[in-house]
């Protein structure tokens, strides 16, 4: 299974400020009622983006200037809470291709990587600089280079890092591990045979 080598992501960015933005906020539980992930993008950040009557609330993702943004900027502990893959799926289906934040919750980070959506950590000051540039010019190109772990925008450049195992998987096109895991099936069976509780 040949996967895309994700080395560079460039596009417009949108800043959704705040710390501890949890998975229920990214996609409320009532939108998990589905047997496929199709169409989840519509419900991204639903309750903070829409009123009960469906009309839009002020939110960066509703701002016409940021429509079509592919890079999301946020605060600390992004994606905390549930293991629901619906959260990164909703982001991706909405068109987000990478997230830059001060930090990520563990399960969200892993789920995103497995979908080929890099999550990079940057300092608050640097995120603020990118956000300021985007605010000044929403069409400014923000470019993430996973090789150098740097983000370029409006003639500036800041560092943004991610765990080496995730970076390696993305740039080498092995972010979906299923192929490798299947290759290890024989060895897995051997390990299982040594564990009494796993006996048939």
């Amino acid at each position, binding site marked *: 299974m040949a996967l895309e080598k994700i080395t560079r992501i460039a596009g417009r960015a949108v800043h959704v400020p705040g710390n501890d933005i949890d998975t*229920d906020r990214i996609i409320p539980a009532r939108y998990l009622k589905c047997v496929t992930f199709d169409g989840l993008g519509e419900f991204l950040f639903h309750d903070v983006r829409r009123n009960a009557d469906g009309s839009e609330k002020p939110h960066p993702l509703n701002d016409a200037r940021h429509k079509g943004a592919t890079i999301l900027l946020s605060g600390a502990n992004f994606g905390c809470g549930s293991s629901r893959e619906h959260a990164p799926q909703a982001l991706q289906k909405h068109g987000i291709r990478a997230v830059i934040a001060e930090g990520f919750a563990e399960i969200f980070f892993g*789920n995103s990587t497995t979908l080929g959506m890099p999550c990079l950590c940057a300092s608050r000051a640097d995120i603020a600089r990118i956000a300021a540039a985007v605010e000044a010019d929403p069409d400014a190109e923000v470019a993430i280079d996973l090789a150098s772990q740097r983000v370029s925008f409006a003639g500036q450049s800041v560092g943004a890092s991610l765990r080496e195992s995730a970076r390696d998987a993305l740039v*080498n096109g092995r972010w979906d591990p299923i192929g490798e895991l299947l290759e290890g099936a024989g060895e*897995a069976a051997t390990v299982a045979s040594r564990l009494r509780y796993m006996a048939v």
Partner: protein
Amino acid sequence: MPKTLFEKVWDAHAVRSLANGQTQLLVGTHLIHEVTSPQAFGMMRDLGLGVAMPHRTFATVDHIVPTDQVSEPYADPMADAMIKALRRSCAEFGIVFFDRSTGKQGIVHIVGPEQGITQPGTTIACGDSHTSTHGAFGAIAFGIGTTQIRDVLATQTMALGRLKVRRIEVNGRLRPGVYAKDVILHIICTLGVNGGTGYAYEYAGEVFDRFSMEERMTVCNMSIEGGARAGYVNPDETTYAYLKGRPYSPTGAEWDAAVARWREVASDPGCAYDDVVRIDAAAIAPTVTWGINPGQGIPITGNIPDPAKARGADERTSIEEALAYMKLKPGAPIKGTRIDVAFLGSCTNGRLSDFQEVARFIKGRRVAPGVKAIAVPGSQGVGLLCAELGIDKIFRDAGFEWRSAGCSMCLAMNADKLVGDQLCASSSNRNFKGRQGSPTGRTILMSPIMVAAAAVTGSVADAREVFGVSAN
């Protein structure tokens, strides 16, 4: 060299190193439910893959199952479709399914231990972040996403990076009226909601030595709320006594051999930890949240934080955001805050001892007028035991609605939801914005006994005063 339980279990299940440096880890037990697995089965079918070890895969329905309707078709057509999809997949791949008709259905993290499937020294994965619950037995248990569920179904393995281990020791004695729920809320408030990132938590100390399995489960359950992907307690006599005689527990000579293995798997004396935190049990109070994440909590005797007194801009912003959502007044006592709903249940506090303990105190009391109180046993098994002991009747007589098993108002995927900005005193695990089903609904997390105190007084109350608690 002395090793931690985490290291021993990891090493025993490590299959090989992957190209990116992660480990291909064998998953001994895979638990699945109706909400996060249908897409995984879809991916399997698309790729033409089969289930590698159906005999190590167990399914039940909990997230979306209605608790006020027991016969199908369910009123919610999507719930009906999701449950039928799981039933079909289990039949197709030969997976044991604790369906409602078996009498063994319930919240996946309650069913696993109840059936004796959750055992020490094992690795467990489930598409739910509260899988850490199973760590109470000395298992390493991870919440995973749907693509990983596919990986586990297809290969019984997953790709994972090794975690560091933080030992959290709680020594001394808990004060009367202080419960396991207060211990974990206190730990999260102390270490922060992301304090555990990169760690597995090993809970230890005199308090955990004395805790029952159900109390240990309550603490391990909320590890993820502190950012830790897994949490565990070393197995001991309490663990073995709980497991003995359960349907999936070993028997006869196999039992003796298993207990011998389980003794070996506990952390060795003198092993090295990446971090150690010590907490004085006597410093823990009945704890309630006031904000929109589980780390925003205070003792019941405390006042709601005032953003003007915050230690910096960050804290000020987060307090302001939380109080604006919660509609609470800065600086005011949390005690006395009016509630609309009381919810007792969930994988955190939906076990027999939770209902037993509350029943002791609400017998002869009445839920306050205007409060909707619902009690939801975590499994059909818990519901049955409560019925045998007459506990369901005590709850009904007190004015609680007594429901059938499921996740219910913890995440409100079924019909059990807050309405508008109702405030709920809840024994569940998350107080996120909108968590309990209404985009403006408000949640205050607390122990079951505190939920009962709130239910009978109609406001957030100190259960020690309401029930005259002098000893646990």
